[in-house]
């Protein structure tokens, strides 16, 4: 099956529709014309750049370039996790915990999936490794960001409660137990919902993409199932690791709650 290429002027046609939405929202005084247009422009620029980089990486197909691209993706995801938290651990801990937990979960799950399940040759073949890592990182990032945000917010709001439990002689992990569980749960809910609704409410993006590219639906479906499982595992372990490390960091060696280790985001 051949793929119908899109020309740039055809994309320009689609952008007219975005402009129509912008005009309508201006008339409706939604106050989001600017952010809509900026976001649309960012989509074009960012994806065009990524396209160039991907073309290059695919052409070279060398492990070191794929590794470099993966690290860049990871660092950007780490920054994104940090910027999505209202109250963040200071001194680089917000970035460090987010990035490290994503590294541990997303990278190990990706490598495992490539070697054990899909088995391309070589195992790091960019056609498989980059999209899988990208999807895993994107979803793990959401889980980790939600989990950490819920954790720091909850601890701040329930400071008196945690300290009262400490006063009664509870160890720190018991005193923060419910908040920690709640934070992990909130990180996992989106991926569980996505699995539950897959195929019914919406056709998942990757499957749609594969079908558009000419893959028989039966194969696309199998890949989608694989990806959803892998995303759930990566997000689950990543969120668990990040929230556990974050909660530990909020207490010192004397099991005192240290809200002074949180800073309020300035943006």
């Amino acid at each position, binding site marked *: 099956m051949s793929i119908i290429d899109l020309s740039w002027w055809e994309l320009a046609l689609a952008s007219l529709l975005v402009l129509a939405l912008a005009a309508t929202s201006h008339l409706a005084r939604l106050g989001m014309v600017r952010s809509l247009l900026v976001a649309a422009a960012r989509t074009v620029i960012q994806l065009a750049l990524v396209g160039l980089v991907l073309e290059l990486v695919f052409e070279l197909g060398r492990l070191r370039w794929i590794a470099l691209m993966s690290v860049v993706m990871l660092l950007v995801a780490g920054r994104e996790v940090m910027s999505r938290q209202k109250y963040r651990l200071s001194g680089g801990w917000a970035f460090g915990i987010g990035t490290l937990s994503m590294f541990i979960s997303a990278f190990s799950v990706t490598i495992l999936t490539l070697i054990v399940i899909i088995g391309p040759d070589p195992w790091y073949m960019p056609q498989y490794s980059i999209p899988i890592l990208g999807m895993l990182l994107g979803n793990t990032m959401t889980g980790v960001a939600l989990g950490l945000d819920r954790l720091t917010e909850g601890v701040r709001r329930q400071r*008196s*409660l945690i*300290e*009262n*439990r*400490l*006063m*009664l*002689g*509870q*160890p*720190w992990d018991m005193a923060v137990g*419910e908040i920690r569980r709640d934070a992990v749960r909130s990180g996992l809910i989106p991926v569980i919902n996505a699995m539950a609704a897959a195929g019914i409410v919406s056709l998942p993006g990757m499957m749609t993409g594969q079908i558009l590219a000419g893959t028989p639906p039966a194969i696309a479906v199998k890949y989608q199932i694989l990806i959803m499982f892998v995303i759930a595992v990566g997000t689950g372990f990543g969120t668990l690791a990040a929230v556990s490390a974050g909660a530990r960091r909020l207490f*010192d060696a*004397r*099991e*005192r*709650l240290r809200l002074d280790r949180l800073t309020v985001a300035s943006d």
Partner: protein
Amino acid sequence: MSESKPVGDLELENVSVGELDSVSQSIAAGEIVCLSGASGSGKTRLLRAVADLEPHGGDCLLGDIRQSETPAHRWRALVMMIPAESQWWHETVGEHFDAGDAPGEALEALDLPGEATSWSIDRLSSGEKQRLALIRALAREPRALLLDEPTANLDAESIQRVERWLLEIIERRELPTLWVAHDAEQIKRVSNRHLLIRDGRLQES
């Protein structure tokens, strides 16, 4: 309730926290030392430092148990702070007790019915919360008490009851007690000694 032997005196060795610098005090087993001072003078912070809830200078001793050498949660179970505003995290009162049930004689002494353990937290008044928080803490059998205005939310009659009940327990269990209080009459009624915080210093009054 099993009554174990008291552990001993509570000693503060050069405790520094906030504005308070190098506080050294010894509170004997069964002694009640009242602590007062203007709001913001650091009364609560001193209690928090003794409970090891915030970073501080110096050290504390309970008998021969040293704060800095004891796991923090173990220390806090021995030297228990009871805050002015208590917090509750389960649905009902009883779930906050290890035994699943508050000791009946304590409920009775503080004019609470036996079924108070099945009450939902949402329906408690501030006075009920304060009395139940005292019962909850003392049911864990601490060896020293740090009380932060334990009768702040109570009416006159309840204040008398709580004072009587606390005095009896403190004497019987020989608990060294640091009690933050505002009311001069109450200080006279309950304290063996009265310390005043003024200009970042602790002075006998």
